[in-house]
């Protein structure tokens, strides 16, 4: 039944009389957006291990935030903002909590990331795998603006505001990000 409803209708069911109610309707919303949210969480955080926790937190936050969702934009657009803010805040907190390089064994943490990536990629097609591999090889400085622009379709000014950098810096990073992604992607194809 819920599958035939639009996002707006589902939101209406979930938030009735100002209270958050219909859990089944919300499950349908989660089903529609979970893979997209997961992609963003993965590539904005740069962490496969944290991506699922972040995605889960995004949907929980969205559920309780629906009371204040006024319907001025589409649910997907609103969710996109919730997701982006949550992931970027996570990245910011992680940077602030960064420990000394001497305290971390880079080889051990890299090995964990590679292992997780291998398990996940076993389920994908070639195309998805290449896109994933290309994005994961990029630096955060170039990957994040690229994802915000070409995956989420935020405007340049919105990206600049979210990242706290100037407009020209954002555009330059996106330009370089696109070039780098294409180079890595083509190299993977040739490999």
């Amino acid at each position, binding site marked *: 039944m819920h599958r035939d409803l639009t996002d707006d209708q589902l939101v209406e069911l979930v938030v009735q009389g100002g209270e958050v109610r219909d859990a089944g309707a919300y499950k349908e919303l989660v089903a529609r957006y979970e893979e997209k949210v997961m992609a963003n969480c993965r590539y904005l955080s740069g962490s496969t291990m944290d991506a699922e926790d972040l995605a889960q937190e995004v949907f929980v936050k969205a559920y309780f935030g629906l009371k204040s969702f006024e319907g001025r934009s589409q649910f997907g657009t609103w969710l996109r903002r919730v997701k982006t803010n949550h992931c970027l805040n996570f990245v910011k907190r992680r940077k602030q909590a960064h420990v000394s390089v001497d305290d971390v064994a880079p080889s051990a943490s890299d090995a964990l990331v590679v292992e997780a990536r291998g398990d996940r990629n076993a389920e994908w097609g070639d195309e998805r795998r290449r896109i994933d591999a290309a994005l994961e090889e990029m630096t955060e400085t170039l990957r994040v603006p690229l994802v915000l*622009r*070409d995956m989420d379709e935020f405007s340049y000014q919105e990206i600049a505001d979210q990242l706290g950098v100037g*407009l*020209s810096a954002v555009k330059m990073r996106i330009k370089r990000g*696109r070039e780098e992604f294409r180079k890595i992607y083509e190299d993977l194809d040739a490999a």
Partner: protein
Amino acid sequence: MADQEYTSGTNSADDDLGAPVAQLLDHTVPVAPEFRARVGRSIERRVLAADATLFGLLAPLETLVELLRAIFEGLGLIDADDPSSAPSSEGDTV
């Protein structure tokens, strides 16, 4: 550096920045089969925690109100049959 060439850009002025990476627009990452159930459980836990907190705050208050009501009723300051009656402030005798 090359700041000046970007100052007049609009969302449609992608030409100078290279074409958008089309593959990214619809790119998704599959989730674990139990993901939706985990989201549901997180929501339920939060609702339960909120309800328990509210109960923890309200229960002592309601207990205090009932205790005061019993005292005032015992002193005859309020009518036991009228729950909305307030204690008299004029010092009426019983």
